């Protein structure tokens, strides 16, 4: 097992080998082990979602729909959306990196309520299990948005279980977030003031606030959809006296802020990576922190921009469009500040940094096209077209998944105690970047041209761009398989690393890799500001060693 003898001297048990056996994992209350449990679960769900995406892209290779039936196709995009959003994107960074890192970053022994933390995972598993049951019993074909009255009175698939699985998994998010909020408030180490928190903690905190205040609304709307289907009462069905727009209001009150649930933790991770590999403090710490909070707050004031053509009042649309621009300002601040952080830095183009740079580029495109969509007159034309599809994939995949992978590479040495192969990492990052852009950039053009989203077949003149998109998706698929492969490989063969291989700032690097069960041998006392790279060695420990690059 041990390949590097020089580190054998560290005898104290880390969290991975503190105990052995399946039971020690399934009954653990250690936040780091729970993070690993989540990592396994969401990776599994990610590849299920990716499989659906594969079918979608293959189907769209030709205009006339030859691969699958319309019904199958509808199920594919519905379940792709639901799996990716509720079972991968929303939990991904918070439950994996958040769970693992927040206590480490603030110098706590664990999260505030460890048992609740484990319970959240079990609730997640129940929700995921219910959803997999839905998949196996024929799937859903409502679109991930569950718009009524289609979902309540028309489709015949298993909407009830599907909706309730979203309800259940929502509670998992709520409990995790509640845990984070209390942890950040109450368990910070002595000296770890709010002004010294790493931006990832700020971002996770803001994310948790959004989840706590927003998720009840998706829960109640899903519960109402399920009850409406079971009892045939007409809460949303106009034929029975309801109003379908009320559902959209309830749904988007959560589901728009949910976009920030997906992107904010990613932004936090990117701030950690950029500072480390620029060897610099972050540019404008407070504006970065306040921008995070501003996004969380303003994110709640813009939901009806999903409904500009849905029949809301013109005045309401004007207000929501206006406010949508206010959420764009803090996002712009973040992009500019990241760029400025690199100014006069000393840049290392390691794999995490490549992901961070890709994130900035892709998030900028995603954010800019968001400005297009917030502009009312433009939105009317492209809403529900591939322009929107491209836009949110740039944010969610180009932003969130890229940040997640960047974070996984950056923290892999801390999580596993071993280094991933750097050259493979760089190749994978490049493949993902190219594949991603090839997949989704043509979709902007398709959308403006008039290709509808959720179309099983389409007009022949759109084929060339769709073929490009499918080609890109295949490249992207390979790109995502690569890290899975080499991370698994490195668990056994990767070289062991010390406490702080990246010579990074932050408390999480001041404890062994992998950390012991209670994180710190003794409670740390913080006397330094966040990102104090001025006080750290100028170069990065692991890169001093020749072997790293060629690994």
């Amino acid at each position: 097992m041990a390949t590097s003898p020089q580190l054998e001297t560290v005898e104290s048990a880390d969290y991975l080998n503190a105990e052995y056996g399946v039971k020690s994992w399934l009954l653990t209350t250690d936040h780091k082990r729970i993070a690993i449990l989540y990592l396994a679960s969401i990776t599994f769900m990610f590849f299920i979602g990716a499989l659906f995406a594969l079918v979608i892209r293959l189907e769209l290779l030709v205009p006339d729909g030859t691969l699958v039936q319309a019904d199958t196709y509808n199920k594919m995009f519905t379940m792709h959306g639901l799996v990716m959003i509720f079972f991968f994107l929303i939990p991904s960074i918070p439950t994996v990196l958040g769970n693992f890192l927040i206590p480490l970053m603030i110098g706590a022994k664990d999260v505030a309520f460890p048992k609740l933390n484990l319970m959240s995972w079990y609730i997640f598993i129940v929700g995921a299990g219910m959803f997999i049951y839905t998949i196996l019993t024929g799937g859903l074909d409502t679109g991930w948005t569950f718009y009524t009255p289609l979902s309540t009175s028309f489709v015949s698939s298993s909407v009830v279980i599907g909706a309730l699985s979203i309800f259940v998994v929502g509670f998992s998010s709520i409990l995790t977030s509640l845990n984070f909020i209390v942890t950040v408030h109450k368990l910070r180490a002595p000296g770890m003031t709010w002004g010294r928190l790493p931006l990832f903690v700020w971002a996770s905190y803001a994310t948790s606030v959004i989840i706590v205040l927003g998720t009840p609304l998706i829960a109640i709307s899903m519960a109402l959809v399920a009850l409406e289907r079971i009892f045939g009462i007409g809460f949303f069905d106009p034929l029975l006296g309801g109003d379908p727009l009320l559902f959209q209001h309830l749904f988007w009150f959560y589901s728009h802020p949910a976009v920030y649930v997906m992107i904010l933790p990613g932004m936090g991770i990117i701030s950690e990576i950029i500072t480390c590999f620029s060897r610099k403090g972050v540019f404008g710490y407070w504006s970065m922190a306040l921008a995070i909070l501003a996004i969380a707050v303003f994110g709640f004031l813009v939901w009806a921009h999903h409904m500009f053509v849905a029949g809301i009042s013109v005045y309401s649309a004007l207000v929501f469009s206006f406010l949508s621009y206010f959420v764009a300002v803090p996002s712009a601040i973040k992009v500019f500040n990241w760029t400025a952080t690199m100014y006069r830095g000393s840049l290392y183009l390691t794999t995490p940094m490549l992901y961070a740079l890709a994130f900035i580029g892709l998030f900028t495109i995603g954010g800019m096209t968001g400005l297009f969509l917030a502009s009312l007159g433009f939105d009317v034309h492209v809403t529900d077209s591939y322009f929107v599809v491209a836009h949110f994939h740039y944010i969610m995949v180009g932003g969130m998944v890229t940040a997640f992978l960047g974070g996984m590479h950056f923290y892999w040495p801390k999580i596993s105690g071993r280094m991933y192969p750097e050259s493979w990492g760089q190749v994978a990052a490049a493949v993902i970047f190219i594949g991603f852009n090839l997949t989704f950039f043509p979709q902007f053009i398709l959308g403006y041209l008039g290709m509808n989203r959720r179309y099983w077949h389409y007009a022949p003149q759109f084929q060339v761009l769709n073929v490009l998109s499918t080609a890109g998706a295949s490249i992207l698929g390979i790109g995502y398989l690569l890290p899975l492969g080499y991370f698994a490989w490195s668990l056994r063969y990767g070289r062991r690393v010390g406490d702080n291989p990246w010579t990074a700032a932050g408390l999480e690097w001041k404890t062994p890799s992998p950390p012991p069960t209670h994180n710190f041998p003794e409670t740390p006392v913080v006397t330094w500001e966040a990102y104090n790279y001025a006080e750290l060695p100028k170069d990065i420990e692991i890169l001093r060693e020749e072997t790293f690059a060629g690994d």
Partner: protein
Amino acid sequence: MFPLWPISASTMARQVDGLYIFLIVVTGTVTLFICAVMLIFIFRYRHSKHPVAEQVTGSLPLELTWIVVPLGVFMIFFIWGANIYVAEATPPKDSLQIYVVAKQWMWKTQHENGEREINTLHVPVDRDVRLTMISQDVIHSFWVPEFRIKADVLPGRYTTLWFRANRTGTFHLFCSEFCGTQHSGMIGKVVVLDGAKYQEWLTNGGEMGSFAATGQKLFQELGCANCHRFDTQGRGPNLVGVYGKPVLLSRGTSVIADDAYIRQHILNPGFQVVAGFKPIMPSFQGIVTEDQMLSLVAYIKSLATPQQREPVSNRPPVPKSAGAPEVQ
């Protein structure tokens, strides 16, 4: 080669294209600028060239600049977009009225002269066209990319869309809101004809009598006319001259008798009873289809401007104190 820019076939399309180009130029410039700056930094400050980072960690003037300037630019986006949106929301007065009923998975369109079409819509070029739309089942969305217009078609509620085609030809009509299995099959075409051809097309098909006449026939068949008589003796209000005017309700409030009110009232008469009448009208829920409903609305609308009939007061004697709202 494949197309990169859609055909522009309505007055609105030009405006949207203008906004789109502006957005692309502005955001494209900024995006390219950010990428260029990143590349320059990567090149100039890479570790091998710039081994010691200088701790530049903030500049308030700079940060204020990139708060205020983007906000200013965003406000241009907002105002421009809002202008187009408001224009899209306010159909010109003397538009050609067409009714659209959407159902899984087809479009039914009806012209005022009685012409009906399925998955097709013939309109004249250079003329304002106003669509009053409703769905019979789930939410659909009426989208003609070449016109750059779209509006959801809701069940239970009328929505409106208008456009002015400025180019003859045949254009795609898509359902844009996911509406079930054959969503992608719910497509049709909009045929824009020049004035003469449109007239020709109209006269070829308009033998079934005008849309309002269909409504009138239905009005008789359903027995509406028994109570809604054209004098003050009926058990229901006289409907002449009602459309578009305020109606006093038994609750003391008043509503405008528009399409939505008429539809609501036929389906659910007890909801808003007109002052001075008993809630005796039966519901026509499940009896009148959305198409028929639209013809009834068209008929009542045609009564708004009585040509030869004597205008009679539509309101029965109500207590003076109730203060019937005056027409403004």
